[in-house]
């Protein structure tokens, strides 16, 4: 717990220290929600992964996830996020805890366009400070070959002095398969933000979301290949899924090389459907270095306007 506390305070300090320079652009309230550094580098296809930060993507894999991690990301000068999570074994399952803070700051005054009746835009002052906080606690259990998990989360958003918060729930199931000669395949299904409302969706960025994730991998010559894929659908408020076309695919590939048990390097690349009304674009990439019980992950997200967001995570196993 001391390690987790240290990581958490370090991450918070890193987020707080992120420069808040004003550059004249207006920051919307819809903030990026990625929570896993490795996952981000692999197209955010994290639902079937087995890292501790899977708690943000679906609780079923908590049954097999182990470790403690902290990550900080700087999207651009006025927006940064920090994430901590931990997962450990409990009987034949596992438990996990996670927290995420995203903070942004706008120039003052900053006007943001709002689509009004009749298709006309009006400009309204955007909030000067935007923050989103997420705290999750979850558990999973293995029944026969199925992992079943549930988590409860507290989501809060603050736009200047206006605060919105809500308790929500996630549920999920996953199963491990073996393809051919010992090629593992994990299939995971997650339903997130159960109990959300249309208002939560826009203010807390918590759409009702279903995600089907796959994760597989195996040796390729001297290397280790990992593949993660995901297809998510979001019910965005009162609007139907199909009408808004919110099928959100993601795909990521990791190629790792282990030169000594517990010591490895990896490169990752991902493609995803970025969340709407954010500056995020399709491509992600990154790398990782594992030094025994510590792994350092790095991810880069492609942003609109030829900019990059950098994310660094540290994981303890």
């Amino acid at each position, binding site marked *: 717990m001391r390690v987790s506390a240290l990581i958490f305070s370090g991450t918070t300090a890193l987020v707080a220290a992120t420069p808040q320079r004003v550059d004249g652009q207006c920051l919307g309230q819809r903030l990026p929600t990625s929570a896993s550094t490795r996952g981000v580098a692999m197209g955010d296809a994290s639902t079937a992964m087995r890292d501790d930060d899977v708690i943000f993507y679906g609780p079923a894999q908590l049954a097999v996830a182990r470790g403690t991690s902290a990550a900080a990301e700087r999207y651009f000068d006025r927006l940064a996020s920090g994430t901590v999570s931990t997962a450990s074994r409990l009987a034949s399952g596992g438990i996990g805890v996670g927290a995420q803070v995203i903070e942004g700051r706008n120039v003052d005054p900053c006007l943001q366009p709002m689509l009004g009746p009749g298709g006309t835009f009006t400009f309204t002052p955007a909030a000067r400070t935007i923050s989103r906080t997420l705290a999750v606690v979850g558990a999973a259990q293995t029944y*026969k*070959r199925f992992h079943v998990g549930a988590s409860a989360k507290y989501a809060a958003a603050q736009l200047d002095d206006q605060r919105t918060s809500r308790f929500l729930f996630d549920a999920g199931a996953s199963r491990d398969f*073996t393809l051919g*000669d*010992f090629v593992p395949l994990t299939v995971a299904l997650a339903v997130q933000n159960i109990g959300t409302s249309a208002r939560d969706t826009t203010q807390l960025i918590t759409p009702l979301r279903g995600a089907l994730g796959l994760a597989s991998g195996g*040796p390729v010559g001297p290397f280790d290949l990992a593949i993660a894929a995901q297809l998510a659908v979001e019910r965005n408020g009162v609007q139907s899924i199909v009408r808004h076309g919110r099928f959100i695919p993601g795909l990521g590939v990791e190629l790792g090389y*282990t*030169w*000594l*048990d*517990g*010591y490895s390097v990896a490169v990752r690349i991902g493609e995803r459907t970025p969340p709407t009304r954010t500056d995020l674009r399709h491509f992600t990439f990154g790398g990782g270095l594992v*030094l*025994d019980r510590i792994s350092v992950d790095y991810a880069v997200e492609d942003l609109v306007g030829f900019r990059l967001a950098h994310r660094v995570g540290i994981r303890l196993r």
Partner: protein
Amino acid sequence: MIAEMKNFSIAVVASTLAACAQPLKLTPDDSKVVLAHQLLDAPNPADRGPYTVKTLYYGSGTDKQRRYFRDSVAIKTKPTDASAFVSMTPEQASDRKGYWGFEAKQFPINGRVWYPDGPGPFPLVLVVHGNHNMKDFSDPGYQYLGEHLASRGFILVSLDENFLNGALRNENDGRAWMMLKHLEAWRGFNDSVTSPLRGKVDMRNIAIMGHSRGGEAVGHAAAFNRLSRYPDDAKVKFNFNFDIKAVVAIAPVDAQYKPAGQFTPVENVDYLVIHGSHDGDVSAFTGLRQWQRVKFTDGKPWFKSAWYVYRANHGQWNTVWGSTDAGPRSARFLDLRGLISPEEQRQFGKVVIGAFLEATLHNKHEYLPLFRDHRVAGAWLPKTMYITRFQENGYEPLANFEEDVDVTTGTVAGVSLTGDSLSTWKEDALNLRWQNAPMNDNAVWLGWNRHIAGDDTTKLGRPATYTIALSDSISHALHVDMRSSIYLSVAPTEAKPGPREAAKDSTKKRDSTKARPKPKPPETKKDAKDTTTIDFTVELVDANNVTARLPLTRYGAPRRPLETHVLRRADREQSQFANTYELVLQTYVMPLADFVTASPQFAPDKLKAIRLVFDRAVVGTIILDDIGVSAIDPAFLAQARP
């Protein structure tokens, strides 16, 4: 500043990486000395024999995965119901049926056979693999042994039990039972008029051999063979009673299955177990436990032999398994640099297994001395180090330290134990190096240091001794005479007791006004490396107090523990293993006739005491076990020691 930070980071990372992978650490090889002589005057059992080798397959003829057992079977066999011996979860059963096309109720009797081209009958040797990736079929991996043994007049059958491999647990009774069902099939092959093997099989001369879990299974098979009912379910009847004469366990596990909750007892067979020090799968010599449990009770000339092979691994005795004992990627964590080559390891297999089968099934007694003292075959054995245990049916224990907690009494009434000037004298349990698992064997620890505490470092006290005294009655009852031999099993350790206290001068008057300083306890340096040979004198005393003395080294090489590091990472090695060595005792068989030669007045039939005199090394500690006497078959002593 940034450059300094960068350099510092690089240095930290580099030193972290360097610190984790350990350098290759091996005990210096002494084989040039120990294996310098070839005294056995017999054909090398690793040489190809005179027979042309033929092969055939037998099996179900319907195998979904194994084309040899589907398309190439010369003899069709009926499947057998093994469900009483194999338990699977419904998921496992379903997966396995999907892959193999059958379930435990229809296990096939599949085997590949190498046999001599001749009229026979030839002894039958069954070999069964152990656990491995079930889809990477293990049975072809003994082809080298099959071709070799068949050329020397044995029929070797490699059994297909791949369908028992994978993630099953507690299935070694099933592996054993399948082995016996194969023998039932062989009885038919030998009797059937249509069989190509009709009359070629000597069913009165059978050996069973197993590797890894198969190595445990052969012990169960030897036990089941003489039982009338399955110990775990008496409704299942047995009716085997095959003439299993010899059992070979290659790097076996032990007690994964325990019949009726007990360690498997094996009686009245010749037994051989071999194990590599650098086994990356079964990383402890667990086969020694079964070796200890093999008993000879029917008065027939059985023997048992155990070989600890330095730098051999688990898989190289099977060509399919190879050097990576824990799977294809295990080179990431297993240190393979120290291994002897696969060819050398298999050469060892041919020599020792070949000689064992020649001796036990072909009754070629010229190979027996190899098992008493491996130094007699220096030209045959690959150049590495071996520690060997040996016992034959004539062995009578004097002290095996199992019977009670009294360190002064022997195993049989009339034997007493005394120590003199010893720094260490304790009885304790021997443990395996893997997680300190019990070896189920007790021994005595004896330590000495002839240095006298004080400024004069050249001053030596009298040698410490440990005496096994025999009463007249026990000496008479054991029929000790000129033909007898003394047994000792010894392992020197690294422990070095501190100097002994100076003898008190009783002529000096103590000043009672001064507080007497508390004497310092002798220091014991456990980790200090010392390469001097731990030798001592074995002194026999007869009823007339005539002594005869011979050095232990004449009968074997007393080695300090052989340094063993299986894993590449030192921290993982440390967390998994209690020691960097396995405590394997070397058996020394010392003929009383040699003592008479050394001291003609000595009367062996009046043996009164066996005294170990620690006069040949100033300081040292040994573990001693299985002290006994035997009217050993002279064939074991036929070759003079080097």
